[in-house]
């Protein structure tokens, strides 16, 4: 059995997270951390269906876009951020149930391609439905979130620090929900579907329902992430539906370690920061990422989280060899 963190250590860790904006880091670094948090939420969501249930979804970016646009359109229409935020999650969840209901009847290659098809359709609708989404021009001046409690609090989220706490809060919530789900009967059912679907069915696990649950929970959190992103950037265009976001999420998931809790988070932060620092090699950035993905799949299929284990076993192996020779 794994030893559990004591409450004290959890508290210390939380304290560290809360104090991050006060560490001597620049605005730009804080920006990267915020984007990293949003990506971490999305990759955790993607991990449910792809890492645990074992079906590769290329359509999760659709929920990000839907969440971003729902939230932006509602707040531009005068609705408060917090209502729009919840609405973004709900609308993304509804899209998730619809798309999941259609696509999860298919498995393997069909699922991969059809989820991609849905994301592309939504991108095209967004580009062409100019009266609603302003098409390729996008929506700008998306209002900042506000907390307004009379006589007590009056905050407008005008600083990066506010958004750091907002995205961190969302990440912790997602982490908690994912952790509880994965370490429950539901999580074990997901893994059983991934490992052997026929066997899982034979012991009474309804594979379709469980897979749909993973997909919809992921969709909701991705939509919430989209909402935070929209208000943080204050501008969104059709590129919130772009395939490059899907690719980033995949690289983060695979490089971090799919089917683990901590892997997606590590992957999200490493691969939000890495492309930024690869800006020195600006021109070759994406080419390098492509190469990294190819090599990662061949040489590190279980991701960064598997590295300590692999290094230890490598050293042990070497020791053993030297001992016998």
């Amino acid at each position, binding site marked *: 059995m794994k030893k559990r963190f004591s409450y004290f250590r959890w508290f210390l860790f939380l304290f560290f997270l809360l104090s991050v904006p006060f560490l001597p880091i620049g605005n730009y670094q804080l920006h990267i951390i915020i984007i990293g948090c949003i990506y971490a939420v999305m990759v955790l969501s993607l991990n449910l269906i792809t890492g645990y249930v*074992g079906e590769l979804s290329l359509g999760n970016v659709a929920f990000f876009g839907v969440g971003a646009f729902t939230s932006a359109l509602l707040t531009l229409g005068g609705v408060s951020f917090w209502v729009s935020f919840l609405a973004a999650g709900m609308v993304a969840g509804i899209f998730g149930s619809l798309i999941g209901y259609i696509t999860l009847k298919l498995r393997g290659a069909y699922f*991969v*391609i059809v989820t991609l098809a849905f994301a*592309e359709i939504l991108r*095209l609708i967004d580009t062409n439905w100019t009266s609603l989404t302003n098409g390729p021009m996008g929506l700008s001046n998306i209002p900042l979130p506000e907390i307004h409690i009379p006589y007590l609090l009056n905050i407008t989220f005008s600083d990066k620090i506010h958004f750091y706490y907002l995205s961190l809060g969302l990440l912790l919530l997602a982490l908690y929900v994912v952790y509880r789900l994965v370490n429950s009967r539901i999580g074990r059912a997901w893994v059983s579907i991934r490992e052997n679907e026929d066997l899982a069915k034979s012991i009474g696990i309804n594979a379709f329902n469980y897979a749909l649950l993973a997909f919809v929970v992921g969709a909701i959190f991705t939509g919430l992430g989209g909402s935070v992103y929209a208000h943080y950037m204050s501008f969104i265009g059709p590129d919130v539906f772009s395939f490059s976001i899907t690719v980033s999420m995949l690289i983060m998931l695979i490089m971090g370690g799919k089917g683990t809790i901590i892997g997606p988070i590590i992957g999200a932060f490493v691969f939000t920061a890495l492309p930024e620092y690869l800006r020195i090699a600006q021109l070759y950035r994406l*080419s390098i990422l492509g*190469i990294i993905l190819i090599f990662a*799949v*061949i040489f590190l299929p279980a991701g960064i989280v598997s590295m300590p284990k692999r290094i230890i076993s490598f050293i042990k192996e070497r020791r053993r060899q030297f001992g016998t020779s």
Partner: protein
Amino acid sequence: MIEQFLQQLCNGLVMGSGYALMAVGLTMIFGLMYVVNFAHGELYMLGGFFAYYLTALFGINFFLSLVIAILMVMGVGLIFEVFALRPLREQGILTTVLITIGLSIFLKNTALILWSPIPKNMPTPFSPIALTLGSVYITEERIFAIIAAFTVIVCLHLMLQKTKIGKAMRATFQNKESAALMGVDINRVYSFTFALGSGLAAIAGVLLGSVFFVQPTMGSLATSKAFIVVILGGLGSFPGAIGGGFILGMAESLGAGFISTGYKDAIGFVFVILILLFMPSGLFGRKK
């Protein structure tokens, strides 16, 4: 009305031959190797660019550069198969999808660096003046594209039916283990299949590239179109890919002409979803 209809149908035939060539390659790679090749569109783009450089820069005859470009892309496909796909053969669909996505990102962005995003016109020996067939206008290069596509498809069919490697491919397609037991060199068949599929994508790239233009980003849309066609026709189905290619080409042209140009690229995706909703059994030809 009728004239416009015929004209759109004719345009659709050109697009359709490109789609069919792409989709045949894709479906062959999937059917045999169980690899969903996300880099297919980039191989198509490479075909177009190699031919463009051979004709425009080195002044090589268009038909000769067509052949050289195809061979070069087949080489690229072969290298990728041997070094990246072969070690991962038994790894399942997720792994291979990721590695082909990696290849696609790499090829597309390297092409953007090397060749700039500006569209380029490929010089062809064909006359730029359109011919009139009744009320339909068609250029020589379009006629060539259609004829070439049909020729390639017929040759491919003959190769699969009559030659030894074709027989080996069909055997592997039906049952890999039994084929191996009968002395078929599976590694060779896989490499050949991937190279052949890449070559087919390259032909489509040269043909459509000569009709329209070549551009590093032309591959992304082509990949998704090829996927649509393959799903329409059923994954792994050879005639399905050809039929689906022409259906999609026609539907898009007619849709662009009569409904809306903006939603032209969505037509195929809607097709896919409708098919999955109303006739999913047709697609379940081969359950995993």
